[in-house]
């Protein structure tokens, strides 16, 4: 029996997916390059330049002013951050509980995972590197800042310790490295400026912050070179010209100043030195007041991000005793959620990857975070002031626009597919989905304000135990005519096949259900189905924000599982619905679930590997593109199992869409949008179908009954004028495998 579905939080262990290859560890570059440079030069130049060195405060009087300013600057930075932290501390210690040892511990559980992420994602900026242009740009700036900081610090240290390190060839190597990284920094800044000027993404428009930070940094680097050039011009070039070659940029600058008289040059040097130093201190103060704070906050957020599966939503414990449901006020957010708002660097990656935004619908995750951030600045600070003055938290805030419905519009919250593309893309590890769902919770449970379609879905869930309003089918319609081929669950079998609502109530999905049954029978798997008694596991209610209804439905289903002997560590539940899969695997443990969970693609892959299902080679040649379901792929890291099944079917050629795996685009159904009316320029499923059609594949394969439906309806509009035979065909992996691996007589079961 598979253990691939054992609950846990580390990514690879939960599933059979493999890693998609190593990425460059960016951290290594700034650390090794300078050291290598210094060693190289010291080796090459040992003989000639034994005395090379320079003074720390060449040509500068009153340099102590600098040391006086230093604590002041640190104070300014700390003041900014501490002031901000008062807003963060308005939030709840954890999502809905009290400050307990437990809740504190939850921020530090899985320490190795968190530390790994801190190093790789925070320090190594793993995600920034995904986009080559921005990756190189960011790497240039970051490495330059780190190296120049170290270089400056080293020079100062060297000056104050009795032994001289920076002398002779070592000094020259040092100069060269400093010069190179100064230049690298300038290149990075130029790239960043060009990025904003030449190809600003629609999602982000640069603001004063961008220009101040970039302009400031550019100025620092340039003045640094001017100061160096003037020092070389006035003290080095004539006396020890061979030293100056090791500061190539400074040397060029010195040549440009060569006509300037030494005395005048010394004056200019002093001026620029002070501009450079005061500028550096002012610039670094931005750390407490602008998005430059990501230098510190981004690694912190990499550490603080939840270690649970990304598709998991947190439970509202003791929901009946809560004073509010979900988030309608800043202080209802967790501290982490408020903190996160300040980490956002407005890079737009989340929005660029958001299916709703791509389809021209009214949602941009970046703007949600940014609008909340502005609100936290304006209103959060006033709440803090109220607290300080002993007023009620909301004193004098009655006229403010409400946060939910005002600052963040209802239609934005409803357009979210909870697909996690934003979370996956965010270089500073912001988790948009829980924040969006928390606000939905307040819309649904607190205010009962929702689109009619959502209300209808929730009412159907309440009354009929499934979300498919108006279905002509019953739970067992799919097995009409093959009842005797569907084994009833007895509690003795290894696997329970949980059909789910879609597999039961939607005719297209019933075909998938029958395929799965037929494959399980073909492979002689010991399984059963709970006939007639299944009910929804609550996923749609939960994603739609109705946590209470979710808990009622989940309790009901767990009770059924308890009564029928499913809720047992030795039993495994098979689902073909990734939404059921995610809920059972990641969310049901909170409700007391003990059983194992496996997605049909995982099981089918094992059965093919074990030779219990043998795809035949007599089918026609076909090209297939695989569409990743968000709840299987991004949320649960199952990318390869379905692909490997397809690869093992002879005559199948797999073609990838440009957006695949972690970067896969949602079909549009997630987050309850399966049951909603879409608003906006186009529909998400049409965008995705166009991408599939563009690959030239004959069929699109997926592993989710929602995706199949979304594709089918998207094809209806995208390929309106295409002959039926030439239209894209849509199949579940199980259907494709059934056609290839189940002999004819069996295939109706």
């Amino acid at each position: 029996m598979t253990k691939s579905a054992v609950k846990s939080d580390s990514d690879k262990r939960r599933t059979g997916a493999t890693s998609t290859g190593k990425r460059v560890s960016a951290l290594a570059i700034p650390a090794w390059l300078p050291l290598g440079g210094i060693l190289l030069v010291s080796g090459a130049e040992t003989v000639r330049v034994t005395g090379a060195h320079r003074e720390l405060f060449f040509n500068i009087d009153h340099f102590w002013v600098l040391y006086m300013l230093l604590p002041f600057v640190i104070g300014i930075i700390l003041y900014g951050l501490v002031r901000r932290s008062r807003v963060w501390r308005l939030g709840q210690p954890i999502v809905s509980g009290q400050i307990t040892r437990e809740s504190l511990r939850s921020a530090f559980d899985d320490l190795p995972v968190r530390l790994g992420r801190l190093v790789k994602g925070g320090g190594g900026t793993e995600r920034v590197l995904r986009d080559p242009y921005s990756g190189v740009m960011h790497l240039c700036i970051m490495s330059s800042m780190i190296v120049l900081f170290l270089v400056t610090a080293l020079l100062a240290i060297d000056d104050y310790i009795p032994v001289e390190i920076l002398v002779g060839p070592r000094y020259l190597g040092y100069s060269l490295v400093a010069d190179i990284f100064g230049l690298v920094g300038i290149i990075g800044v130029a790239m960043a400026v060009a990025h904003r000027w030449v190809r600003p993404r629609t999602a982000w428009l640069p603001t004063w912050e961008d220009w101040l930070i970039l302009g400031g940094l550019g100025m620092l680097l340039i003045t640094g070179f001017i100061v160096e050039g003037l020092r070389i011009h006035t003290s080095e070039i004539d006396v020890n010209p061979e030293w100056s070659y090791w500061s190539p940029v400074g040397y060029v600058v010195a040549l440009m100043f060569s006509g300037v008289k030494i005395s005048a040059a010394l004056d200019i040097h002093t001026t620029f030195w002070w501009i450079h130093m005061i500028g550096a201190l002012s610039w670094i103060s931005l750390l407490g007041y602008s998005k430059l704070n990501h230098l510190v906050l981004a690694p912190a957020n990499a550490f603080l991000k939840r270690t649970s599966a990304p598709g998991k939503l947190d439970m509202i414990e003791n929901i009946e005793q809560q004073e509010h449901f979900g988030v309608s006020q800043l202080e209802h957010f967790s501290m982490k959620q408020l903190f996160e708002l300040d980490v956002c660097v407005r890079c737009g990656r989340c929005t660029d990857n958001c299916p709703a935004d791509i389809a021209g619908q009214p949602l941009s995750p970046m703007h949600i975070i940014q609008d909340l951030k502005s609100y936290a600045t304006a209103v959060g600070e006033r709440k803090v002031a109220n607290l300080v003055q002993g007023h009620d938290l909301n004193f004098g805030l009655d006229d403010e626009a409400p946060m939910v419905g005002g600052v963040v519009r209802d239609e934005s919250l409803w357009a979210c597919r909870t697909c996690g593309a934003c979370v996956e893309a965010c270089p500073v590890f912001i988790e948009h989905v829980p924040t969006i769902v928390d606000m939905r919770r307040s819309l649904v449970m607190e205010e009962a304000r929702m689109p009619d379609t959502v209300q209808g879905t929730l009412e159907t869930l309440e009354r009929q135990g499934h979300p498919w309003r108006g279905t002509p089918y019953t739970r067992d319609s799919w097995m009409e005519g093959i009842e005797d081929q569907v084994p009833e669950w007895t509690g003795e079998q290894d696997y329970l096949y949980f059909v789910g609502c879609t597999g039961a109530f939607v005719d297209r999905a019933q075909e998938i259900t029958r395929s799965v049954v037929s494959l399980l029978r073909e492979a002689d798997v010991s399984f059963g189905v709970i006939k007639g008694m299944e009910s929804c596991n609550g996923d749609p209610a939960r994603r739609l924000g109705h946590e209470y209804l979710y808990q009622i439905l989940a309790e009901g289903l767990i009770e059924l599982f308890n009564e029928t002997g499913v809720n047992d560590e030795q039993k495994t539940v098979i689902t073909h619905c990734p939404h059921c899969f995610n809920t059972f695997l990641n969310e049901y443990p909170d409700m007391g679930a003990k059983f194992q969970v496996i997605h049909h693609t995982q099981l089918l892959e094992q059965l093919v590997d074990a030779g219990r299902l043998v795809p035949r080679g007599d089918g026609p040649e076909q090209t297939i593109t695989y569409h990743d379901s968000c709840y299987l792929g991004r949320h649960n890291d199952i990318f390869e199992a379905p692909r490997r099944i397809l690869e093992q079917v002879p005559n199948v050629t797999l073609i990838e869409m440009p957006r695949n795996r972690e970067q896969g685009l949602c079909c549009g159904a997630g987050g309850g949008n399966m049951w909603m009316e879409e608003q906006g320029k186009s529909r998400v499923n049409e965008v995705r179908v166009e991408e599939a059609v563009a690959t030239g594949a004959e069929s699109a394969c997926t592993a989710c009954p929602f995706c199949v439906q979304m594709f089918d309806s998207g094809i209806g509009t995208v390929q309106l004028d295409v002959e039926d035979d030439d239209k894209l065909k849509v199949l579940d992996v199980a259907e494709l495998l059934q056609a290839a691996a189940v002999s004819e007589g069996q295939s109706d079961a």
Partner: protein
Amino acid sequence: MDVIVCVKQIPDPETPAAAFKVDEQAMQVLPAQGISPVISPFDAQAVEAALRIKDASGEGSVNIISLGPDSARDAIKHSLAMGADEGYHLKDDAFDGGDAWTTALALSKAIQHLGVPDVLIFGRQAADWDQGTVGSIVAELLDLPSATVLRAVELSDGGITVSRVVADGFENIDLPTPCVLTISNEFGDPRYPQLRQIMQAARKQVTELTAADLGLDASEVGSAGARVQMHSLFQPTSDVEVEIIEGDTPEEKAAGLVNALREAKIL
């Protein structure tokens, strides 16, 4: 303004036909597995109308009465969760097997028992048997003016202005209070209860009233007092024949369809 709404708990009208069964012998509808009864949709709209009247008048109360078995409590609780004030459950074995007449009789007694309010509201019909008569009978029994099948209700000077749905349009009428109104689906969707209200409603007491409490004798209500006799109950079967009209082009198919319709004397 004080309003009383009479509501009924019924088998979910969204029950798929395949799950809907009747016991022809006992002449009863069998509850569908896994599908719980719900408040009749028209009645939920009636509660919505009552709540809007109360809001518009800025004062008064909305009270709920329901006659039925234990499960009728849920219809009352749902109405309370929507925002109604008090609930009254007419519950007595003696009410079993009644018809529209006995129901209306019991309701009218209960209304008199509670005090006739400014406005009495019903759904246009219960979505199970679709008779649509209880509201009108209660109006007769209490000798009140009534307007049925309404799509809009507004307060006006000293009374109520309503808009009725009629075959060829709408009919606008002024009524004095007290009066009886029945609400149609055109009125619009009822509100979805807030979770806090659902929880408060769950804790609220519902007053139970028996036939005796209402001064009714067991012989007047339930099957004993019923004036309608049921002779048989069955699910009609319908035969559907499907003919696919062939044709190479949409035009040919359309022409084929027209011919077929002509042959069937539909055109």
